[in-house]
């Protein structure tokens, strides 16, 4: 294999950008939309969010109930496996920790399995959604999250590739084992750390 691509120099760039994981580019103001299914229409009056599985108290929140939890925001970067990264995003909602505190995580729980209203699923180690690393969000830049980006409510796990941040989330199930979700069954990595470039199955 060639060490470099004949004739390719890339965009002009200033030194290394230490906020850009390997193989990513800065998408700037735009926010590409990538989904495997049609955008559903979700009525917030009927929306619910459940945390169940290996918890002490399986709990379901409705729109008002989840808004009554202590608010929490994320300010920072997001990274999509399709190689765009978006800097300085602001999402607001609640920390996943807040939901898990209410439900009470059993000691044997090691993973969470996130499910959307569409049937989309994704798997995450518990450690990747606790300790202030994951949110359930409904606002982006101070405005309601648009449906094509997962509105009214999506999971946000910004330190992993964005397919882990399940759009239109409706359930987090705590489990004592790992099991691939939708994209993971379809060829994507089980964890998806952008800094390790864990894009597809078979990556380190």
């Amino acid at each position, binding site marked *: *294999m*060639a*060490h*470099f*691509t*004949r*004739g*390719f*120099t*890339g*965009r002009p*760039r200033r030194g290394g950008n230490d906020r850009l994981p*390997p*193989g990513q*580019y800065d*998408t700037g103001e*735009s*926010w*590409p*939309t*990538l*989904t*495997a*299914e*049609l*955008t*559903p229409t979700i009525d917030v009056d009927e929306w619910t969010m459940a945390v169940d599985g290996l918890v002490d108290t399986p709990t379901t929140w409705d729109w008002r109930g989840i808004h009554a939890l202590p608010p929490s925001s994320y300010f920072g970067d997001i990274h999509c496996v*399709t*190689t765009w990264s978006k800097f300085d995003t602001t999402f607001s909602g609640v920390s996943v920790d807040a939901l898990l505190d209410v439900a009470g995580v059993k000691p044997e729980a090691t993973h969470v399995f996130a499910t959307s209203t*569409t*049937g*989309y699923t994704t798997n995450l180690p518990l450690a990747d959604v606790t300790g202030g690393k994951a949110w359930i969000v409904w606002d982006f830049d101070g405005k309601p999250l*648009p449906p*094509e*980006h997962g509105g009214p409510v999506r999971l946000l796990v910004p330190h992993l590739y964005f397919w882990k941040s399940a759009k239109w989330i409706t359930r987090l199930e705590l489990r004592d084992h790992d099991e691939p979700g*939708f*994209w993971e*069954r*379809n*060829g994507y990595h089980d964890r998806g750390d952008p800094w390790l470039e864990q894009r*597809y*199955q*078979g*990556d380190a």
Partner: protein
Amino acid sequence: MSDLTQETTSAVASSWTTGTVREVEHLGENFVKLRLEVADRHDHVPGQHYVVRLRAPDGYTAQRSYSIASDPADPLVELMVECLPRGEVSGFLHDVVEVGDELEVRGPIGRWFVWGGTTPSLCVAGGSGVVPFVSMMRYARRTGTEHLLRVVASAQTRQKLPYVEELEEFGAFIALTRENQPLPDGSERVAAHIYPDELVPLAEGVERAYVCGSVGFVSFVGRSLGEAGVRSDTVRVEQFGPTG
């Protein structure tokens, strides 16, 4: 979401390999067809894509995904690349790449937006979104399963629709949004997105729909399919481009 076991026979290539450019063909101002000889190649399922990675002398890399247009039995892997404004990778593939160049490639990738030749399906493409469907059409023709595949392709003009002749030959329904089209009965189809009454007969009896195109196009087609009675959980989507 439904089980995919019937159509997920191909493994994701877990490492990068070399794609040697054997043919380069420019189509209009915006499209380039690249045909690659891929080392250590894995067979693909129609609808899958490859990632192309470019590497600068200083180690900087850029990579993008491109749908495969070729039939799995084709000895070369065909990618159709639309040159995007200020496209770092697409611009290079369009303007610089020559026969004999070696590109780093990885694939085939994706096991969801795939057609294995067994499910009666409707494919709806906007512009360069036709590429994965070209692979499906070629596969269908070779395996005698054309009757299971209906294709709708929409573009602003005929000029902006890659593979337009091949689509017509396959019997695809073509909807131009900025050019009127003569119809066999002597009348004209007035330029517009596909009309609901055009979509309804095409959607009849299909068990799955695939939609590939820009975000706005996919959203429009999604609503139209719903009106045509297609259940949203049977629709598989691949969309590209910014939301604006």
